[in-house]
């Protein structure tokens, strides 16, 4: 045998699923929400999404280059961040502000902490909160569904169902389900998000634990406080947050029990902010707060290795 042989540690076969494939699956799962956004909020929605995606990818490329690190654009995680950020913005936002959000997400939140897998909070959510505090009025001016049929994006506005709710009015469940209400581009259409959720679960990208626990907790709290359960679940950013943000691998616990605790915490905080806070919506802040608690949750929910209990029993 003349040729040299490859020596490597076992195992010698590896799964075909690489990080890129997982991110691609998430992008596919986001497509129904993207399409719904474009249908409901017009071509402008597409422009904002394209804007944040391009800026995110560019920001990732440049920051890796500047930091002299291996380039990670091909893992597609920046694309996911870009789409998620756009879906969390109102359609009327100035594209420059959106671009600023994308840069904040990728550079400040993700790459400054070491890039994919090392950020401790969700980049898209944090960027949304940065934008919310930087441009409060822009970020809370909601274009009405199908505004493009009647006038300009600034002229045809409406309130979000949750804001309406606080002032005593209520949106129909049908509008909430199909997304024909005011709100962030990707959060209004429950149907599209549910399709994405099913896809992610079927492809085993996520387990349903976090979304179901999160939504279930909000439903339970609504029941306890005498609120309309379906309305609380379908309105606002809850579904989008529960399916796509709270399930972010990097910023959610890797232990099974930890995931339940994390999601339940998100649910409680979301409901409390909605019910008692001055903000109409609390999904972003709840997930962000729970993101920060992840290391503590993990430490408290270490799994018992096989046979550990039995060995203690005998001792």
């Amino acid at each position: 045998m003349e040729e040299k042989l490859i020596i490597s540690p076992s195992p010698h076969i590896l799964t075909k699923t690489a990080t890129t494939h997982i991110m691609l699956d998430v992008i596919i799962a986001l497509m129904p929400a993207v399409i719904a956004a474009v249908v409901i909020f017009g071509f402008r929605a597409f422009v904002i999404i394209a804007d944040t995606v391009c800026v995110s990818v560019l920001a990732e490329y440049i920051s890796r280059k500047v930091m002299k690190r291996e380039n990670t654009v091909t893992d597609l995680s920046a694309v996911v961040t870009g789409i998620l950020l756009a879906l969390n913005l109102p359609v009327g936002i100035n594209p420059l502000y959106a671009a600023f959000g994308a840069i904040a997400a990728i550079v400040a939140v993700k790459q400054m902490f070491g890039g994919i897998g090392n950020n401790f909070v969700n980049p898209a959510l944090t960027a949304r909160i940065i934008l919310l505090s930087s441009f409060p009025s822009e970020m809370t001016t909601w274009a009405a569904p199908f505004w493009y049929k009647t006038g300009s994006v600034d002229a045809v506005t409406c309130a979000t169902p949750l804001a309406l709710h606080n002032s005593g009015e209520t949106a129909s469940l049908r509008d909430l389900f199909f997304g024909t209400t005011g709100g962030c581009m990707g959060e209004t259409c429950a149907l599209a998000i549910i399709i994405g959720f099913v896809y992610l679960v079927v492809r085993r990208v996520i387990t349903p634990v976090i979304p179901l626990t999160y939504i279930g907790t909000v439903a339970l709290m609504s029941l306890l406080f005498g609120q309309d359960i379906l309305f609380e679940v379908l309105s606002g950013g809850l579904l989008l947050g529960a399916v796509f943000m709270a399930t972010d691998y990097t910023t959610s616990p890797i232990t099974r029990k930890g995931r339940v605790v994390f999601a339940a915490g998100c649910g409680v905080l979301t409901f409390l902010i909605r019910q008692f806070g001055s903000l109409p919506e609390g999904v972003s802040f709840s997930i962000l707060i729970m993101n920060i608690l992840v290391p503590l949750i993990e430490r408290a929910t270490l799994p018992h290795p096989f046979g550990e209990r039995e060995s203690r029993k005998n001792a």
Partner: protein
Amino acid sequence: MEKPVLSLPKKPFRTRGGAKLRHNKNTSDFHSVMLPCPQKVILPMVQHIGMPCRPVVKAGMKVCVGNIVGASESLFSAPVHASVSGIVKGITRMQLPNGYVCDAVIIESDGEMKLSAAVKPPVIDSPQDFLDAVSASGLVGLGGAGFPTHVKINVPDGKRVDTLIVNCAECEPYITTDNREAIENTDNVINGIILIMRMLKIDRTIIGIEDNKPEAIRILKKAISGCNEAEAKRICVLTLKARYPQGAEKVIVKAATGRVVPMGKLPIDTGCIVMNITSVGFVSSYVKTGIPLVSKRITVDGSAVSEPKNVIVPIGTPIKDVINFCGGYKEQCLKLISGGPMMGIALESDEFPILKQNNAILAFNEKDAPLHRTTDCIRCGRCVDSCPFGLMPAAIERAVRLRNKDMLKKLGVTDCMECGTCAYNCPAHRPLVQIMNQGKQILTHNGKKQGV
């Protein structure tokens, strides 16, 4: 008072984690063929877990098949026998694939495969005779680990074993030797089971076998129903779901009996002995013929091998000879693996001999031996979800990087059996098995390299 008879399981108990692999059992229908006598064999003095043997032959001595060439005074060892007849050419130092350096006896074959006059069936009158016979046979766990069998079946005082688990799970892809053992050597397997049950006073035997071996399952079931009634009632075939690592000792104990082996303990502590099916078959044939462990069935497969085969080879045969018998390499071989693709060791040369515990030689071409780019951990938790022992490889990796001994202990790194399920599932292709191993080294030797 008579103790209640243990019932036989109808279906397996739940086990945790694991991975669904492509089986690639290409050779499962290939009847084993004998390798023609090799020109020389290399017999390392360590083909087991335990104390190394000392060569008891000198260069120039004539040996026959079955003569002892390496022995040890230690109980925790297994003798090495000449696998061909011929002349001892010399004794060299060699490094084994796992890095261990030991003596090796090289025998030049005379091509006659003459059986030694010392080979005669052992006389077994008592359980102690039986243990002595197994010890003299040189048998080690043939499933791959190479644990000396006489140590394993020596039940310490005060412990009772009620269940023999015959491991025919063969969860590693490609390998089909246990499957062939069940099909080709059925009588010896059944006789071996009955013998071991009688000698060790074991109540029941569960043959654990994955559902991807329907023929072996059928044949074993038929053979059991052919036993006399008292025995047939105590032996069963338990079909397991084909899921890696179903054949890992602690996993198969859980699947077959529902018992959990405590951390750091052995199956015997829960009243079980797990033996590979080929080991069981060998025990019976040794008691009948007295021929020690001098040959081994191995699966030769992989994308670079011309004619995949199941071959019965004398132990110590250079891998090259076995590959040539299988038509040589049809493509450039880039990775040569001793064992299965999940836990096997990548070899640096095909001059290495076949060892007792080898069950496969796999030669992979360029397509099957890619060098994966390792990327950052994305904390997806697939390693945690798939670990059959409930460990947290991702967290252990962090503890290894920080060299945090307390954390490593708490995370139970020493319990890792390095099955590779976590690394297989990792989308970032992180070398988790290597990292686990490193974690153990940090705990035992402070992470320093060990001199041999």
